[in-house]
């Protein structure tokens, strides 16, 4: 187990390193002088040179890369231009907001999507099934920025129940979380439905039923227990993806998280901030995925031997 864990952590760190390096290369491949973009039209030659030094854009690519990597190891990702403070601090300040929003959204998703998927799977091939199928297709076809604006207009402007933007009180969490959950519920409930329908139709359930096991137990202790791994994996993957920035929803609701920070960093070409965001979010996303993998044994005794899950 310890060996497997060490291997997985090493793999994950390597992936993060690759991602961060890709961003490093991309920024330098781009046409145009980033220093000019940062300095603006009034910058003098000396200004530009100073900015280049600050950006780590002097010297050969390999020297720049070495400078970047040594800084990375020491946790120094440079100063953010627009915030005038260490880029890493800016990102870490915003992080709790994104985690709160993503956590609320995934909780809401699990609470609705799992019962919904089980309900429709137990009524497979009925009108409920077809209706839910078409409903979830519609649910995953709506652009989040549009549902967000619509919810905001209806429930914060026309009928002012919730605050319109930002994070002033906990009720401000409702609309953005619901917007994200609408899409995720559609995706996850389809998965729950597929897994449950497959398990409920499996021979082992039929055998158990013939031996008189109650329907409730068949649903939860038999079929759901066997569906839980793919469902937990999907929820974990979705949560990890959200930590990478629920960009669109954060922008619509002016939520002070990573997502809206990213858009601002890109607009102002704040490279240290972009690199810090990429580093923090990919570390987090990979960490969550690792955690989900390690949680498998809790859900399924068959993987408790300490081997990787191969499905």
């Amino acid at each position, binding site marked *: 187990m310890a060996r497997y864990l060490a291997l997985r952590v090493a793999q*994950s760190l390597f*992936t*993060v390193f*690759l*991602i961060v390096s*890709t*961003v490093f290369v*991309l*920024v330098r*491949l*781009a*046409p145009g002088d980033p220093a000019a973009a940062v300095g603006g039209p009034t910058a003098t030659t000396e200004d530009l040179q100073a900015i280049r030094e600050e950006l780590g854009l002097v010297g050969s690519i390999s020297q720049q890369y070495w400078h970047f990597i040594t800084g990375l190891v020491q946790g120094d990702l440079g100063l953010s231009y627009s915030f005038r403070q260490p880029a890493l601090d800016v990102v870490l300040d915003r992080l709790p907001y994104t985690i709160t929003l993503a956590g609320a959204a995934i909780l809401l998703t699990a609470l609705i999507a799992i019962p919904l998927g089980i309900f429709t799977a137990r009524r*497979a*091939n*009925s*009108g409920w*099934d*077809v209706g839910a*199928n*078409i409903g979830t*297709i*519609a649910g*995953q*076809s*709506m*652009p*989040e*920025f*549009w549902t967000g*604006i*619509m919810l905001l*207009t209806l429930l914060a*402007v026309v009928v002012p129940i919730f605050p319109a933007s930002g994070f002033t009180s906990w009720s401000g969490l409702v609309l953005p979380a619901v917007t994200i959950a609408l899409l995720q519920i559609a995706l996850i409930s389809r998965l729950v439905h597929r897994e449950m329908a497959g398990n409920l139709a499996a021979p082992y359930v039929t055998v158990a039923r013939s031996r008189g096991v109650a329907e409730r137990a068949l649903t939860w202790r038999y079929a759901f227990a066997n569906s839980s791994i793919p469902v937990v994996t999907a929820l974990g*993957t979705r949560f*990890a*993806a959200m930590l*990478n*920035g629920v*960009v*669109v929803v954060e*922008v*619509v609701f002016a939520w002070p998280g990573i997502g809206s920070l*990213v*858009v601002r960093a*890109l*607009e102002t*070409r704040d490279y240290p901030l*972009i690199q810090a*965001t*990429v580093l923090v*979010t*990919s570390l987090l*996303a*990979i960490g969550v*995925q690792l955690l989900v993998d390690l949680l498998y044994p809790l859900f399924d005794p068959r993987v408790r031997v300490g081997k990787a899950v191969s499905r």
Partner: protein
Amino acid sequence: MTTQTQAARSSAVTADRLRSSAAALRRRASRLKIVLGAVLAGVVVVPILLANVLPLPDPLEQDLSQRRLPPLTDGHLFGTDQLGRDLLSRILHGGQVSLTIGVLAVLVSGVVGVIAGAAAGYYGRWVDAVVSRLLEAQMSVPLLLLLLLVVALFGPSITVITLVIAFAQWPEPARLTRAMVLVEREKPYVAAARVLGLRRAAVLVRHVVPNIVNQVVVVMLLLLAQAVLLESALSFLGAGVERPHPTWGRIISDGQGYITTSWWLVTLTGLVIVLLVVGVNLLGDGLRDRVSRSRSAKGEAQ
């Protein structure tokens, strides 16, 4: 108008027979999805394709005296925007941009995905290792951030946006193709073709890939729906095809500020996106049901 009555009729038929057998219901459900999907997508796609011949005002023509007219005034079916431009015309021309990018992106990601997936599944060993690691790594990438960064760095041209969306989408056809080729390569006909003296690459290209390709093609429709959503999200966030081209995401992002006084800018544009994407998704889902059923009917494992 006729198209709407058609949709209503076919759904009514299905509701009538809901109590029949499970297999019949499944068949009818997929037919309902295909018909409904085709109608919804058609309602949006046909006007978009005809946008240049329809008698519509120019999408770029500004008339500041005609600002933010509500729908159905002065011959503006969907009203006008904050610069007095005809909203319907802008939505249809924006749709041309979205559909062009969507179709091209799906073609690119489909070709790349099928080649990579087929090679990984068929040759195994290091080819599979490389492709599988790439697929895994992409799951951990902060994707939207990377896409926004690339568009910001390389400029918002149709080519860049298409490639960026194709990059986001290639894992899906690749994973699907790989899984199907893994099953297919163990079948007797592959060994037979090898015994007959065909080279491995020839077996893959001439026999294995043709046997799986229509299942992948069906998934392409679902990818097209996602591509349209992704394009609109990118342009909503400011990474859309450059002005003055109208794009769906930007019409909505510009209209956001006028939502309380001019509801139609955001609402109608969004409804058009939803209609198109729901239609394409339903069509793709229905066709996928049908293809996988005809395969299992032939006794082939998925």
